[in-house]
């Protein structure tokens, strides 16, 4: 049937022949056949867990993981973006630079923090803090939890694209060890901007995707209602992503999800961070940079001379 559809599509459009309805009908049947409702639900559960309003946020982890935290604010250009928080944290007897998206817990905080959707100032603050960390040999730990960079006119005018690309470049450039952890929603370039790290980890029930399932469904299925199917198709769960080689590790969550036990979740993250840093600090900075480049170089799957390469 899939072949039939392809053939139909290839037919030259003749006057009077209306294939569109036919194509739509077959497409629809294919979607139905393709759908795995059980998997659908399982994946959507993860999406909802990743967005769960009681899930621990960046500041919760900071609060639980570090005996001391000094927030540093501002991009020194235009503003301070509360959608990204960062600062120096006391960690295992030393200092670490922690930076992460912050969604805000109650309505006031959510509004103030723009639901964790950063503007260019947020990414510029992140760059400033990362460069400060680099100067003093302080490792960088980022937490990712955003629906995406804020789509607004003023944010665009102040260079949202360049703020993200330079955040990526800044992370590529760092000499200190870097660990990124997706703690909730890893949405699009706005998430990736903080995730070009030596180790990229995900919490079990977090998601990480090139586009939100809703937008993907609206664009590709022309139907935002197909978000469940899009979520399944996008392969955005932690188990999908580790399989694709897109992340370096997945951290288990407390039974039922991180929102059920913030302390236990923070303990898991703390242990993982310790392990990652111990590994990374044993490597010479120059080698570590090279390995970082090589890791991201390997991202992607393509065919070359007929062979599929990973």
């Amino acid at each position: 049937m899939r072949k039939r559809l392809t053939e139909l599509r290839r037919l030259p459009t003749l006057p009077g022949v209306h294939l569109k309805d036919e194509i739509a009908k077959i497409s629809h049947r294919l979607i139905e056949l393709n759908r795995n409702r059980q998997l659908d639900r399982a994946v959507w559960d993860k999406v909802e867990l990743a967005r769960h309003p009681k899930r621990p946020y960046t500041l919760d982890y900071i609060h639980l993981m570090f005996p001391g935290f000094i927030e540093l604010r501002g991009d020194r250009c235009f503003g301070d973006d509360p959608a990204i928080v960062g600062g120096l944290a006391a960690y295992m007897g030393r200092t670490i630079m922690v930076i992460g998206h912050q969604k805000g817990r109650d309505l006031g905080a959510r509004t103030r923090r723009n639901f964790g959707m950063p503007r260019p100032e947020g990414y510029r603050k992140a760059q400033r803090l990362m460069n400060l960390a680099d100067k003093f040999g302080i490792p960088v730990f980022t937490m990712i939890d955003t629906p995406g960079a804020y789509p607004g006119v003023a944010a665009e005018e102040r260079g949202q694209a360049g703020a993200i690309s330079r955040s990526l470049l800044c992370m590529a450039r760092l000499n200190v060890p870097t660990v990124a952890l997706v703690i909730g929603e890893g949405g699009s370039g706005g998430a990736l901007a903080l995730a070009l790290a030596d180790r990229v980890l995900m919490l079990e029930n977090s998601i990480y995707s090139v586009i939100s399932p809703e937008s993907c469904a609206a664009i590709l299925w022309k139907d935002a209602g197909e978000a469940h199917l899009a979520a399944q198709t996008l392969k955005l769960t932690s188990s999908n992503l580790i399989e694709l080689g897109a992340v370096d590790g997945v951290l288990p969550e407390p039974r039922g999800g991180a929102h059920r036990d913030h302390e236990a979740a923070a303990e898991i993250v703390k242990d993982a961070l310790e392990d990652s840093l111990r590994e990374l600090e044993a490597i010479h900075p120059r080698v570590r940079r090279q390995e970082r480049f090589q890791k991201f170089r390997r991202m992607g799957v393509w065919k070359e001379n007929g062979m599929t390469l990973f």
Partner: protein
Amino acid sequence: MARVSVDISRRGGDSTFGGAQSCPACKQLLSSEQLEANLRVCPECGNHFRVGARERVAQLVDSGTWGEIAGNLRSADPLEFFDLRPYPERIEEAEYETGLAEAMITGTCRIHKMDVVLAVMDFSFLGGSMGSVVGEKFWRAVETAIDTHFPLVAICASGGARMQEGILSLLQMAKTTCAVELLGGVPVPFVTVLTHPTTGGVMASFATLADVIIAEPGALLCFSGPRVIEQTIKEKLPDDFGRAESNLDHGQVDMIISRLELKDRLVQILGMLEGGVACALEPLWEEEESRPGRRGTLAQALDRIKAFANPSRRSS
């Protein structure tokens, strides 16, 4: 991210078909030959139509000097992505319709006798979306530039990341950024030309990381497309939102250059940056550590700089 749906109809529509068409800006009826001869710039009003990647190469490159890099790369289907249609079918169709293997072609070439590594994107191939092949092709172009010390020019046109490759398409932003960082370490000059439209993941990675960023007149250049923003703020955006001219005013690009001048200007800019590199590689003091460079290119670079036929001059 993947902004394949960016509305491009206002700016010129599909320009690859034969026959006459009317300029969407000034309504002038233009023959295909007329348009092609004028580099797909409306002779009446200067509106810039879209250009396919092959045609762009023909516009820019000294004849007979194009040597394609990584032309044998093809998209795989790592996610077995199926929406209304399977991803491989979309690829096949794009190949069929554009005669291209992917949304970017890369190669070495000469532009006004200057050696350059060139990467050109094509919006008509799945909206110029960046998937694994585009990322890998860009990486190999950078590798070639590092090996040869030829400067790198990327002509961008993209709706963003290729959703059908899921997270792997997003990660091409990280991959191409790492490539830019490696290139900058040499350093080899890197110039991007942002054409209509360049949005999403390409705009938020290598496109905005160049040493010099050139925009084509009227090009839509943004991260989030107008539709996404309109849905967010529930308002119609002004026509000039995200256009090249607005980007220039807001400090995001270095200059806007008409396509009719692009070839000459590109060589001037590259020559200038090369002039710096070349001179910096001819130190008057003794080097303490050996430095990979290419001595002897000073004279070549200087010749280029001296050869400016039409220096750009602006008065107050």
